C-alpha cells in the first residue's frame, strides 16, 4: 500500500495513532503495550516521571528505533516499518532534546537544508544551492519567525543555548510538517528563554499538530489541548489538562514516585 504525504485536506480524526507499541533494551522494558492517539490540529502534551520512556516514544515515532511489537499509523497509514527519512517525507518533523544541528554551517544554511529536504531537492548536482531563491526565501521566513533574523550568518555552533533551541525548532518547522515532535524544547532554558519558546509554540498551535514532551509542567498545562501521561512505558491516562490535574492515577504516579 502506498503512503502519501499528509495533506491539509485529509480528514482523519487521528493524525497519529500508536497501537500497542513495545520496545525493550536487553531486560529493560521501556515501552510496554503503548497506546496513544493524537488528533489532527491539537497540541498534545506527553508527560511522565523520569525514565518513563518519553524520548523512546518519540524515537519510535520518528523511526530512529523500530518497535519490537505494535503498530504505528500516520493519517491512517501504517508506518511501523517505514525508514526515518521516509517518515520525514510523509510529514513528521522532530526537534531533539539535545539540539542536533549542523554546527559549522550558518543558521541560514541549516534552515536551507531543511527547506531543501521539504522540496525534495537532493540530487541536483550542478546548481549552486546557496543562490537558490526557492530555498532562501522560505528559509529566511522561518528564520524571522523563530526570531533569528539577525543571526543568519552565524555558525550554528556559536549560537547561545536559547538560540540553538529556537533554530532546532525552526529546522523542524522549515520542512512544513503535518506533525511536529518536540522533545523538551525548554530544557535548560532560563525563565526568559522558556517564555519566548512557549510563545513560539502557542503561535504554532492550530497550524500544526504538535506532540510536546516537556518537563516544565506549567508550560505543558497552559499550552496543551490534551495531555497523555506516560508511566513505565505505558500511557495511563489521556485527557484535558484540567481532568489530568484531578486524575488520581496521575497523582499517584507523580507523588508516589517522589
Amino acid at each position, binding site marked *: 500500500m502506498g503512503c502519501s504525504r499528509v495533506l491539509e485536506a485529509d480528514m482523519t480524526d487521528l493524525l497519529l495513532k500508536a497501537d500497542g507499541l513495545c520496545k525493550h533494551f536487553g531486560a529493560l522494558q521501556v515501552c510496554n503495550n503503548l497506546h496513544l492517539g493524537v488528533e489532527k490540529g491539537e497540541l498534545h502534551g506527553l508527560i511522565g516521571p523520569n525514565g518513563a520512556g518519553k524520548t523512546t516514544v518519540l524515537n519510535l515515532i*520518528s523511526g*530512529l528505533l523500530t518497535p519490537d511489537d505494535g503498530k504505528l499509523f500516520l493519517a491512517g497509514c501504517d508506518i511501523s516499518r517505514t*525508514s*526515518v*527519512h*521516509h517518515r*520525514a*517525507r510523509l510529514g513528521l*518533523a*522532530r526537534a531533539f532534546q539535545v539540539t*542536533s*544541528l*549542523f*554546527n*559549522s*554551517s550558518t543558521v541560514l*544554511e541549516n534552515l*536551507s*537544508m*531543511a527547506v*531543501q*529536504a*521539504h522540496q525534495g*531537492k*537532493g*540530487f*541536483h*548536482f*550542478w*546548481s*549552486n*544551492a*546557496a543562490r*537558490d531563491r526557492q530555498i532562501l526565501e522560505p528559509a529566511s521566513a522561518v528564520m524571522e519567525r523563530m526570531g533569528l533574523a539577525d543571526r543568519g550568518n552565524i555558525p550554528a555552533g556559536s549560537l547561545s543555548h536559547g538560540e540553538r533551541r529556537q533554530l532546532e525548532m525552526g*529546522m523542524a518547522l522549515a*520542512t512544513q510538517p503535518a506533525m511536529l515532535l518536540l522533545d523538551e524544547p525548554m530544557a535548560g532554558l532560563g525563565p526568559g528563554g522558556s517564555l519566548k519558546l512557549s510563545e513560539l509554540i502557542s503561535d504554532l498551535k492550530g497550524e500544526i499538530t504538535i506532540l510536546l514532551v516537556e518537563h516544565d509542567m506549567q508550560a505543558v498545562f497552559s499550552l496543551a489541548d490534551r495531555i497523555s501521561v506516560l508511566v513505565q512505558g505505558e500511557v495511563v491516562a489521556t485527557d484535558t489538562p484540567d481532568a489530568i490535574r484531578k486524575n488520581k492515577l496521575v497523582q499517584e504516579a507523580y507523588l508516589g514516585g517522589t
Partner: protein
Amino acid sequence: MINRKAVINVLGLLIFLLLPPLTQLFGQEYLLSLFSRILIYGLAAASLDLILGYGGMVSLGHAVFMGIGGYSVGILAFHSYESTAFMSWPLLISGTENALLVWPVAVLAAAFFGLVTGAICLRTKGMHFIMITLAFAQMAYYFFVSLSTYGGSDGLSLYNRNTMPLFDLGSDVTFYYLCLGILLVFLLMGHRLMQSHFGRVISGCRENEQRVQVLGFASYRYKLACYTFAAAAAGLAGALLANQGEFVSPGLMHWTKSGEIMVMVLLGGMGTLTGPVLGAATLLLMEDFLAMYTEHWMVILGPFLIVVVLFAKRGLYGLLTGAGGRHD
C-alpha cells in the same frame, strides 16, 4: 581575504602550465614524468577528498579504484597485442588501445566496483567502514595477484600508451597537458558538485547524519552516489597512471597506496579539493627529494606524518590561504 586564495590558485595553475617549457629550458625533462604523476595522484586524492573531506567517509581502500582503472587499460592492451578476445560470451569484447574506448571502460569498471562494494560498506559506520573498505581493496589486490594470465604479482607492461585522435599521448608534454586538463575539469566539477544541493546533503552527512535523515533525506543513497562518483574519478586516475608508467601491477591497489592517497588529502587540507593536489605534490616531491639522500626515507616520512596529524590538521592549503580546511 578572498584574494589570497585566488592568488594561490592562480599561482599554482601558472606553475603547472609553465612547467614543460621550463623543464626543457633547464634540461630537467625527467621532472615532467614526476609532475605528470603528481597531477594523476592529485586527481585520485581530490576524488578521495569528496568522500573523505566532504562526506566524512574514511575509506582506506581508495587505491583499489585506481587499480581497476589501471588494469582496464592493461588488460585491454594485452588482448590487443595478443589479438585475442577478453571475452567471447555473452558478447564479444576484444582488446583495444583506443583511449576513447578504454578510458570510459576504466571509469565504468571502477564506478561499478564502487557501487557494489559501497552498497555493502556504507551499511556500516566508523571503524567498521574503515576496515571494510580496506578489506575489499585487499580482496581485489589478491584477486589480481592470483591472475597469472595477466602477470600475477609481477603485473603487466604496456608496449606503448593508448592512442587518441588529435593527441599524441606518446609525447610526454602532450600527455602532461592532457592530465592537467582532466584534473582541472575534475576540480571544477567537484567544486560545483559540492556547492550544489547534493553537496549540501553530503556535507550534512559528515556533520550530522541522523539530522539529515530526520529532515527527510535518504542519506545512504546520497553517500553511495558520492562514493561511486569518487570511485569513477579514481578509476580514470588509474587509467592515466597506467599510461604514464606504461605498467600496471597489483601494487597499484595495495592498501599502503590507499594510505598514501589519504595522506595526500590530509597533508594538503581536507574538504578543499585543491588542497589534496597540493598534498600529492608535496608527498611525491618529498619522497623524491628524500630518496636522493637516503634509501631509508620512510623512517623520516613516518614521524613527519605523525607530526602533521598531531599539529597541523588544517593542511598546507589551509596554512597558505589562511582559511579553508575543516576546523571541526
